[in-house]
């Protein structure tokens, strides 16, 4: 049989960022990835800077760049990213080990899936994240 040419139809990185209408869980997945990468990038810099205290250099306490509002805001963003990543990670830990997703049952239309069962958990994660964001903002203001 003659080999027919195929057109590679993978949607690529656009599949990670946006390719159609999605549910909340998919946006949570995207945010989880983005926050994880952001925290990792920050961590690599953070290790470099904080290791300087072995030489007695407490760079972050001495003013200068690390006390600029933009840097303080950046650190708040890291805290925000961590709050979401940790709480969503806790949700994923539960869900990916088979808890909070319900048991298999014979599907009857209109279909209710595991997404509906774990939705309250996702909403709790969002609310808790918001609470931590507010606390963090107040704390940054107080300092």
């Amino acid at each position: 049989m003659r080999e027919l040419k195929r057109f590679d139809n993978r949607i690529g990185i656009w599949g990670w960022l946006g390719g159609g209408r999605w549910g909340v869980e998919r946006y949570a997945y995207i945010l989880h990835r983005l926050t994880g990468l952001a925290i990792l990038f920050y961590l690599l810099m953070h290790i470099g800077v904080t290791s300087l205290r072995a030489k007695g250099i407490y760079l972050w306490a001495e003013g200068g760049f690390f006390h600029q509002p933009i840097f303080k805001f950046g650190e708040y963003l890291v805290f925000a990213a961590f709050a979401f990543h940790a709480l969503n990670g806790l949700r994923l830990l539960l869900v990916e080990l088979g808890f909070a997703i319900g048991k298999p049952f014979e599907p009857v239309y209109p279909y209710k899936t595991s997404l509906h069962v774990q939705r309250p958990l996702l909403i709790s994660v969002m609310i808790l994240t918001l609470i931590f964001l507010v606390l963090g903002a107040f704390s940054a203001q107080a300092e």
Partner: protein
Amino acid sequence: MNETKYWTWHMGAGAILLFLLGSHMLIMHIGGLVHWFSPYGGEAISVKNSLFRDSSLYFAVGYVLLLGIALYHGLCGLRTVLFELTLKPAVERAVTVFLWILGLGLCGLGTWAALAAHRTALLGAGG
């Protein structure tokens, strides 16, 4: 089954980080409200407060654990993200080796720094 092993350890590290990194974040970022482990008031990251934490053995050990586990969890996550880009097996092996070297290197650097800072802080407190 290899990937099962990676994933289980990745999740285990994440669960421990919830406590370790969570405490670190609370001390640093909610410190303005509650002043946990920042007895000298003001900013949680002031030199006095940093020295106070550095002189505690619990914190020194905690920082070393936090560093190791956070690096493991983070770099394992980065490996997962990169591997989903359909890489050639040789590239995958190279990425794994590079991430191990990076992780162990940074872990070594941070551990040395944490223990050196602990020693310096103790000497400073004593002297």
